[in-house]
């Protein structure tokens, strides 16, 4: 979008080590001007690290970067911006309390004699909005915007800074389906205009559909770079995990006839949730589908008592929860794997073992003291059974890959031997291999007689794992679908076109 042409980027021998662990090793990569370059790999493969090195967010320990054949030092985001590279990270980098306008031109406001000249910024923003086709109110505070629009603001900012290379880390992870399509269309448009896009994503189809070339990283090494048009998803997965594998979902086991209802809820209401009823039997997996904002996460939280329902009853084994608190729900045998590992699930600075033991401390104590040998063996056993791969269980859990963190989160709850397991996004930000393990874990738990409620944005996953899928829209159930329903039908119901679905 800038008059200047994007530079060709040459990465040579780049490496990065954190506390003795090599996360990136001897990477050679060429990025040609105006291409969309996909970067894929399992969690911990080094994709984000490579992106951050290009964006100046971290420094490489070894190797060089060259732009248009000229070796450069990118020591800070400021350097990167000066070279026309802009990084849009997973976490986002907006100032919540500032307006869209101020964020787009952050630290680059037009000014006359030290005074910010909003009028000329407004004009520049209007031009950018026209180019991108975004519609956003320049004066709205960004923290009041949905996450998808916030991301647009970040893209606008990159463009306002004259970025000729935009590096995006998992940009679609937080987006709803139609927002994703818009973003991918914009990526193509920007590339057509000469901007280079480097795209990290877990969604292979998405990368394949938009990228010109794709680089696969595995364990910090570059495995291959190839043309997207000559690559299949299965090949990519094969390179990512080192072998070709099928992403096959396990079938949930049959629910035994006459299995008792373990969890039932009636008339749950609070905020987004507006009257949800559900029943789950022992050994059954109930999926909850819906768009972001449909109240699916909120429903799970009400079931667990993480939020207190304004109205409604939650019963376990026919007994209503006395109080709507996590403690009361846990005492009744309910467990919840929350939506966000980092924010709600794990204490990132503490060890793997401490995290796994956290929700069942009272079960292994002598007076006020932790029974350490009992804890060690319990944590060891459960870690083995869910296959947590940690070199050292005393290491902070933040040093583990996303997949192992997620397995630890399951382990923490399984130690309590719950009757009801509520799972919000079972495999978000988890690599392919761990994903399959978690799917098997969930169906295995159902086979053991747990009542499972699962929420997932990945509709295929949800349909494959669940016996039934309940679709929510605006906090109300709009339909319930048996196994074998196609994703299209469920998505249509979630969007409000429930002509194809049966009312529940």
């Amino acid at each position, binding site marked *: 979008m800038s008059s200047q042409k994007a530079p060709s980027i040459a990465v040579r021998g780049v490496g990065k*080590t*954190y*506390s*003795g*662990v*090599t996360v990136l*090793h*001897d990477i*050679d*990569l*060429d990025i040609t001007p105006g291409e969309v370059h996909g970067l894929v790999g399992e969690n911990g493969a080094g994709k984000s690290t490579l992106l951050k090195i290009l964006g100046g967010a971290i420094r490489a320990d070894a190797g060089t970067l060259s732009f248009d054949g000229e070796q450069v030092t990118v020591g800070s985001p400021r350097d990167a911006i000066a070279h026309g590279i802009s990084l849009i990270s997973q976490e986002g980098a907006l100032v919540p309390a500032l307006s869209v306008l101020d964020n787009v031109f952050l630290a680059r406001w037009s000014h006359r004699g030290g005074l910010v000249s909003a009028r000329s910024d407004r004009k520049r923003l209007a031009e950018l909005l026209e180019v991108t086709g975004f519609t956003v109110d320049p004066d709205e505070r960004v923290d009041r915007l949905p996450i998808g629009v916030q991301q647009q603001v970040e893209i606008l900012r990159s463009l306002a800074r004259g970025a000729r290379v935009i590096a995006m880390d998992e940009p679609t992870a937080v987006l709803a389906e139609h927002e994703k399509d818009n973003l991918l269309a914009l990526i193509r448009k920007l590339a057509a205009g000469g901007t280079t896009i480097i795209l990290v994503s877990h969604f292979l189809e998405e990368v394949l559909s938009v990228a010109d070339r794709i*680089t696969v990283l595995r*364990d*910090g*090494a*570059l*495995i*291959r*770079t*190839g*043309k997207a048009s*000559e*690559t299949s998803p299965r*090949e990519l997965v094969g390179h990512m995990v080192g072998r070709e594998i099928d992403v096959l979902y396990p079938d949930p086991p049959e629910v035994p006839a006459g299995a008792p209802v373990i969890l039932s809820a009636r008339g749950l209401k609070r905020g987004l949730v507006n009257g949800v009823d559900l029943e789950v039997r022992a050994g059954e997996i109930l999926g909850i589908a819906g768009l972001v904002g449909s109240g699916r996460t909120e429903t799970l939280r009400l079931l*667990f008592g*993480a939020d207190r329902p304004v109205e409604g009853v939650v019963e376990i084994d026919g007994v209503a929860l006395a109080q709507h608190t*996590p*403690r009361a729900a*846990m005492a009744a045998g309910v467990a*919840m794997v*929350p939506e966000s590992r980092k*924010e*709600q*699930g*794990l*204490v*990132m*600075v*503490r060890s793997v073992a*401490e995290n796994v*033991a*956290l*929700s069942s*401390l*009272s079960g292994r*104590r002598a007076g*006020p*003291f*932790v029974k*350490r040998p009992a804890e060690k063996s319990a944590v060891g056993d459960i870690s083995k059974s869910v296959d947590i791969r940690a070199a050292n269980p005393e290491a902070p859990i*933040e040093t583990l890959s996303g997949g192992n963190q997620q397995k630890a989160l399951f382990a*923490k709850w399984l130690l309590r031997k719950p009757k009801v397991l509520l799972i919000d996004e079972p495999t978000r930000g988890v690599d392919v291999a761990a994903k399959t393990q978690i799917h098997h874990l969930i169906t295995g738990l159902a086979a053991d007689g747990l009542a499972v409620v699962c929420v997932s944005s990945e509709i295929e996953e949800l349909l494959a794992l669940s016996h039934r899928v309940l679709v929510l829209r605006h906090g109300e159930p709009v339909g319930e679908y048996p196994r074998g329903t196609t994703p299209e039908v469920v998505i249509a119901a979630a969007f409000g076109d429930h002509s194809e679905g049966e009312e529940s």
Partner: protein
Amino acid sequence: MSVDTLVKTAAPGSGNMSRLAFRMRDYGIVAALVIIVIALSLSTDTFLTTGNLVNLLDQTAVIGLLAAGATICIISGVFDLTASATLALSAIIGVQVGRATDVYVGMLAAVVVGALLGFVTGTVVVRSGVNSFVGTLATSMVYRGLAVVVTAGAIVYPMTDAAETFGMLTWPSLFGLTSATIMFVVVVAILAVVVARTTFGRRLYAVGGNAEAARLSGIRVGSIHVTAFMISGVCSALAGLILASRAGSAQSSMATGTELTAIAAAVVGGTSILGGEGAIWRAIVGALLLTLIGNGFNLLGWDTIYQQVLQGLLILFAVTMDRWLRKRTR
């Protein structure tokens, strides 16, 4: 499929530097303490004398107790700025109850008052939901004000015939150490075990590391915080008793500002102010380090005008190193 690049495999980590940095972060402060001890031993004849060491530990007791309480609060993710006000108020009430009854009853009363004030502080912070920094700052002004009210601004003394008993914490005890030192060591040892070995300790770290994750794991976050404040309150009361016993009196302006020195000692020792990390032994190392600097100034005959400057620089240095090493190792 076109393959432009050859397959390369990652070499096993060559991270000796980073591992060293990691160790440095954990134990660098102990090394610093040892270096200062050695330097002072070599440069003065007086440092390694029994008298000086007894004196040094006695001086560390007050700030060490406060630092231990501060550390428990910081691990759980809160600050307790009421420490010195609680110290003054509980010492004053301890003296006055002692006047009315008996010195020992008075001392027990001081400890109970410390716990109660901690309970109030904690309840205020938890119930109001105000940031603990602001909440305890306000509460400390209330406590300090109450101390003035209770004493009418005067210095309070124990009864004349009890004055000697009241000074008991300054008496020599086991190994020639003062009673205050023995109390400090015992209390700190108990707290270290509580933090490291009990379920409460585990919950304390979890609450400070991620309060929401702790809540969703069934931990009562509020009661953990209140308990942390109560422990801090008891530590303050014990420190107050040491100071009062030493001075033979208590007054409303006692120990003003030491809550910040205590937090500084905790931080110098390497406890992260972000919560969820830290240890009681770090508080003691930090307190020793700050006290040693004062002791060194005296022994070397340096102008104590510069003592605060050096302490301030040391705190800055410790925190900067911690941040730097953290950045490298993550």
